[in-house]
């Protein structure tokens, strides 16, 4: 009797709670609302390469199956996402429905009228019920001047990956201590990063090198982090003159150039993919990169022919994760999904973005290596499913969460793209052989020219807002 009563109560409880659960699930709400647009299609901007595979091979077909809305994917190289989006806006083509926004460029996107305010949609379709679940480090990205323009779909933070087996090897530990006078462990400073790289390279080359880094593309992220770790400030706030060619800048850039000497021949040409492949293949003992490497090196959820070019991992269960040297990893890029003001199907576009951003769907996305989407919700870090994905997953998620909390935000002012571009070119010039101080001076001159064009006073106001954030300089 008691058993029957218990079952009945449980059934009634479940029945009563089910609608509430569905109502609170922003993913389910998006699917339900999107069904009214069945038969239509939306065009989604995705970063060319691995990112776009998520939309084209997984989420897009799944969304079509669930709602009847077809997803067309436009792939753009990372550095062309912003300019192409602005060009489409200027031409008024309405070619994109869902746009991809790098948070540092949100202000510029808004000032160019390239993104739709989303506050009304967020309330209307229930995404607001899940906002508290977003890591505060990333929630800040979504709004500009008090309005919401994007929903986080990718929470980036740079991570240090190292070969635990080599670092814990007694012979290596002894040899390293004898040579450098301190213990071999995950590097806490960039000097230690360089020491470890040289030590392991000396011992294992040419089969393996002490470290690998990314030297082509995205270089402004790596320089920005080191520059601030050495106490650098981007501008002199009083004059708004560029301060990137300061002592901190020289130290950061010189370090970046010098460290290459202890790495694989041709390291100067390495991008994200080369670095990932080398770590997977056991050709490097340590690197700094984005979170997906944690999933790739473990080989989880890799079942796609399109990914066959990446060497199968030989380092599963051998990789340790650490917060970057200096303790403040760059929150390098990340992505928001937004809606184009020229979209002819804004509601359908928004609902796809909400679904991708929702607790339920985003958890699936951030557990896949493909798509390069990384945890950005508290529920991602605390998900038992994720924590049990592999032996080290819990430690990996902890490093991502702690790193994000302590991380440096990307510089975000007016015309950020131009400053980023100039910085990347200066870093690559130095890596290509130019004297670091000369490269920095060129960068500073270009920055001053950009600031002059924007207007020093106008830029100062934007800079002050950004610099006031705790994640700007971490003092």
């Amino acid at each position, binding site marked *: 009797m008691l058993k029957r009563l218990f079952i009945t109560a449980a059934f009634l409880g479940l029945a009563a709670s089910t609608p509430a659960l569905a109502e609170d699930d922003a993913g389910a709400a998006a699917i339900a609302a999107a069904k009214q647009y069945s038969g239509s299609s939306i065009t989604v901007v995705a970063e060319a390469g691995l990112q776009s595979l998520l939309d084209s091979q997984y989420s897009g077909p799944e969304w079509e199956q669930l709602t009847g809305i077809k997803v067309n994917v436009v792939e753009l190289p990372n*550095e062309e996402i912003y300019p192409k989006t602005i*060009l489409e806006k200027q031409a008024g083509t309405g070619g994109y429905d869902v746009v991809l926004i790098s948070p540092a460029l949100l202000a510029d996107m808004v000032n160019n009228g390239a993104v739709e305010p989303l506050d009304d949609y967020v309330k209307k379709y229930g995404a607001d019920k899940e906002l508290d679940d977003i890591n505060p480090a990333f929630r800040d990205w979504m709004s500009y001047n008090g309005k919401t323009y994007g929903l986080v779909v990718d929470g980036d933070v740079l991570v240090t990956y190292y070969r635990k087996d080599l670092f814990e090897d007694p012979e290596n530990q002894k040899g390293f201590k004898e040579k450098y006078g301190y213990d071999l462990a995950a590097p806490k400073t960039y000097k230690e990063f360089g020491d470890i790289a040289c030590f392991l390279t000396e011992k294992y080359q040419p089969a393996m090198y002490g470290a690998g880094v990314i030297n082509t593309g995205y270089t402004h992220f790596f320089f920005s982090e080191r520059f601030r770790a050495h106490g650098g400030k981007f501008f002199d706030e009083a004059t708004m003159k560029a301060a990137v060619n300061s002592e901190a800048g020289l130290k950061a850039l010189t370090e970046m150039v010098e460290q290459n000497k202890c790495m694989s*021949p041709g390291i100067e040409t390495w991008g994200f993919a080369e670095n990932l492949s080398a770590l997977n293949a056991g050709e490097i003992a340590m690197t700094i990169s984005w979170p997906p490497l944690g999933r790739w090196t473990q080989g989880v959820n890799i079942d796609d022919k399109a990914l066959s070019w990446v060497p199968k991992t030989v380092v599963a269960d051998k990789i340790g994760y650490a917060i970057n040297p200096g303790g403040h990893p760059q929150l390098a890029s990340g992505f928001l999904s937004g809606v184009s003001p020229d979209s002819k199907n804004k509601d359908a576009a928004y609902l796809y973005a909400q679904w991708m951003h929702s607790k339920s769907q985003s958890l699936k996305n951030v557990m896949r290596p493909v798509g390069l989407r990384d945890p950005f919700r508290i529920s991602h870090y605390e998900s038992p499913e994720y924590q049990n994905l592999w032996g080290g997953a819990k430690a990996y998620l902890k490093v991502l969460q702690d790193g994000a909390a302590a991380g440096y935000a990307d510089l975000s002012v007016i015309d950020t793209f131009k400053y980023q571009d100039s910085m990347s*070119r200066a870093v690559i010039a130095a890596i290509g052989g*130019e004297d670091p101080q000369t490269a920095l001076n060129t960068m500073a001159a*270009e920055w001053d020219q950009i600031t002059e064009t924007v207007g020093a006073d106008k830029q100062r106001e934007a800079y002050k807002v950004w610099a006031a954030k705790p994640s700007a300089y971490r003092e």
Partner: protein
Amino acid sequence: MTAVSSTYIKTGRPFWAGRRGTGLAFVAPAVFIMLLVGLFPFLWSVAVSFQDLAGSNQTGNWIGLANYKKLFADARVWAALGRTLLLLAVALPLELILGLLLALHFQSDRPLKRLFVALIVLPAVVSPMVAGSMWRLMLDHKFGPFNQIIAWFAGEAVVLLWVIKAHLAFWAILITEVWQWTPFMFIILLAALANVEREQLEAAEIDGAGRFRVFFRIVLPAIAPVLGIAVLIRALDLFRIFDAVWQLTRGGPGNKTETVSIFMYIRGFQSFETSYTAALVVILLIVLSVAVTLALKRMEITR
């Protein structure tokens, strides 16, 4: 003699231009379209160049000559122009000499001539973007054959970072350009050589003229107009070189291989400095128009 040709001879003008009004009516649509598609964008650029249109300022205020002043003070523009002219000065003679030598070689009948001509011309039909990507792979330090061949000669592993090191990147672009466009010179000059009058060559031979004398006194003057046009086309192409540079280096490392076109693309379509870029476009159009007009006049092609 037909009525049509007699009209032509009598008036010195084609038959359809016999009456002034009719002639104008015939050419007016074409002239209008030419002006619309040719002159209008130029005039529009001129107007925009006096404004401050940019990505973050789409209203456009009139600012007079400010963009031109800024342009003349911008060292990056002059550096890009210098690099473009240097590339032109090195690549053009190389393409011309190699193309001419190949054309002279294939002028006479040779075994499998058609096959070889087709193979030589192949690079010119490839999209420059594809050619740039292909050479990027060819020059890759790890997988590309270029470094491996050098290593065989050197007898040890060679790591030449062609698209990363500033002193090599220029050569990488040069190699790609010469590889792709020498065939263009070759095919044009081969056609020109085929039209050199045999009688003159035979007469010179009978008179005992040497090979060099025949070439410089008969062949070269005969192909000069075609050669001039080929040089002009390639010079203009090289001046606006974009694809190969973009695929190989994107103007890097730093700005070390940035050409005028790359500069304009970055400032116009990535930084959205619309008016500033328009000012550069106007200056370049004027300079190039003058240069081309003078060149054509010199070659007496406009006659």
